[in-house]
């Protein structure tokens, strides 16, 4: 097992702008690191650099105490699970799982016991004689997992391993992967574009956008304390409401809400205000000092226990997650209260979080009428 360290790692293809422009990231030993971001953000490239499938243009990449920039993939002692499984179609499940060991010239008895053990762990014992063509997607993915674990590598790499599976299997496999990580405690790097997977699996999550590292942290850190608009908007489903507000010297205002007495210190100009849908509560029953907003209901998505209410008047939109008790009809006006502890402010241009001012305190100081 080993830690992984990126030091100013850059990757560029030919003369194009860099896909990964100078990444600094430390993945701790035994950690389950999820790389997440929209497609094209460089997360797969980062993963493939760890594997050695892509060369590092500049900077240093360390696995454990080895500088691996020039090391062949085979010598890095990593295992990778691919999105399309990448099973060898002409080999049986057993042979697929045994391939890496055979290549490394392990004794046959050891191979057999290791493969069978892994197959037991993954519930593949009955399928060992089959070929990949005869397996379902979930089974294939388990074989791919098994192939990775039999080798007992220093690092597991996952490249969107669940995106070809249906929802139910995905949940199940997520559980499997989590369990395996708890069992083996091997350093793992997991690439996905699905923030739910990231939240459920990661010890820590690194969010990437256009090759830039946006924020690294535990799932709750990222959720509760996003550094910038991108992270705030990426984590959570539905995502955080982010609306532009104008700072008119002594208050924040836009078409939907009005925080007239917000004290923003020296901040001026245009800001972004963020609040998660679940932090919007029905006005009735909320503390009086919470700011209110009144908006038209555009659409209601009923999810059973709760509902997602889309509010807006054309230019500004927000979503509120409310208990599914009320009856709402589109067009009706709804009054909601904002949890002042959960209001985030961002700079509109740099899109970075503004931590110098706490809108919470502002709100508290000004009781609503």
């Amino acid at each position, binding site marked *: 097992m080993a830690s992984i360290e990126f030091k100013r790692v850059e990757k560029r293809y030919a003369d194009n702008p860099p896909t990964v422009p100078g990444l600094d990231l430390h993945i701790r030993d035994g950690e389950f690191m999820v790389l997440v971001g929209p497609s094209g953000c460089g997360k797969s490239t980062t993963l493939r650099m760890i594997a050695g499938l892509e060369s590092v243009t500049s900077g240093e990449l360390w696995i454990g105490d080895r500088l691996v920039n020039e090391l062949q993939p085979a010598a890095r002692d990593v295992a990778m699970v691919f999105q399309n499984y*990448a099973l060898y179609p002409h080999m049986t499940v057993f042979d697929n799982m045994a391939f890496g060991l055979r290549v490394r010239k392990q004794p046959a008895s050891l191979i057999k016991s290791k493969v069978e053990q892994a197959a037991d762990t993954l519930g593949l014992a009955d399928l060992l004689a089959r070929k990949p063509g005869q397996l379902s997607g979930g089974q294939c993915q388990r074989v791919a997992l098994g192939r990775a674990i039999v080798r007992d590598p220093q690092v597991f790499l996952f490249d969107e391993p669940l995106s070809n599976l249906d929802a139910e299997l995905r949940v199940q496999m997520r559980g499997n992967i989590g369990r395996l990580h708890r069992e083996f405690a091997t350093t793992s790097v997991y690439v996905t574009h699905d923030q739910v997977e990231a939240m459920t699996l990661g010890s820590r999550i690194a969010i990437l956008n256009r090759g830039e590292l946006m924020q690294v942290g535990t799932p709750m850190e990222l959720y509760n304390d996003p550094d910038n608009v991108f992270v705030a908007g990426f984590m959570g489903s539905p995502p955080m409401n982010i609306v532009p507000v104008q700072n008119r010297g002594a208050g924040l205002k836009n078409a939907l809400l009005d925080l007239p007495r917000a004290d923003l210190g020296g901040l001026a100009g245009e800001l972004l205000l963020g609040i998660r849908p679940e932090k919007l509560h029905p006005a009735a029953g909320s503390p009086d000092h919470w700011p209110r907003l009144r908006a038209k209901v555009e659409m209601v998505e009923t999810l059973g226990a709760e509902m997602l209410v889309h509010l807006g008047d054309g230019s500004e939109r927000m979503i509120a997650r409310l208990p599914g008790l009320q009856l709402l009809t589109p067009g009706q006006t709804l009054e909601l209260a904002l949890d002042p502890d959960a209001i985030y402010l961002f700079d509109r241009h740099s899109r970075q979080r503004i931590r110098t001012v706490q809108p919470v305190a502002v709100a508290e100081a000004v009781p609503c009428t």
Partner: protein
Amino acid sequence: MKRVLGDIFSWRFALLLFAGLIVIYPLLWVVSLAFSGQQALQLVALPEGAGFWQQLAALVPLPQQWSLDNFRAVLTEQPFMRWLGNSLVVALSTTVVGLCLSCTAAYAFSRFRFPGRERGLMLFLISQMFPAVLMLIPLYVIVVQWLGLGNTWLGLVLVYAITALPFCVWMLKGYFDTLPYEIEESALLEGASRFTIFYRIILPLARPAIAVTALFSFMTAWNEFILASIFMDDESRYTVPVGLRFFVSDYASEWGFFAAGSILVSIPVILLFLALQRFLVSGLSAGAVKG
């Protein structure tokens, strides 16, 4: 049953039947000449005042009497079996050598990006454009005079393998292009060397295309006679097509022997076609739409 009847009365079936007839008709002439025991095709001899159907029947290529004489003569007059064996050795070696050369080259063209790649591929295509008629003397100079490979099978095998190479490389490259990269990357991570990957992963996966290229190389070597008769200075080393050409000359040609011999020579190829039939279609163009 109903489906079969429906099939039979469909335009597709009619088309196939018609095409099948056109394909088989000239071949039947070859067969009937071979089995006629004679040396020339019987001319269509219309009976005097024959009716329409009689006239039509006269066009059916059937020998007047069946006889195996032609086959017997072909098999006994010359060391046919020995030459057949030589042909097999040459053709199989050509296939092996051709596959070795073309698989490695095609793999590199498909999987690596390197300076000169496009030009290299174009070179392979160009080599198909030069008329073979003029290659004879230079080939003789190289193979017999320079390499000293006259009267050896190695010389023949090399020439045949290289002749078939461009087609094989193009074919295989196209097929390799359709194989997913991840499989190789996975094997790479598992510690397999490039060669192991090539040998244990890519080649088994490309079986259809390899089957087709093998067939093509085999046929290139199997049917050629001019080079074979010019390079070989020992009758015991002739290949079957050389033997067959003894029956054809400017003055008199034993077409019956030649037809019988041709059929005997074609049998292994037809068997190969049958055996490789399931690969043939996918091998020539599999994944072309995907890729």
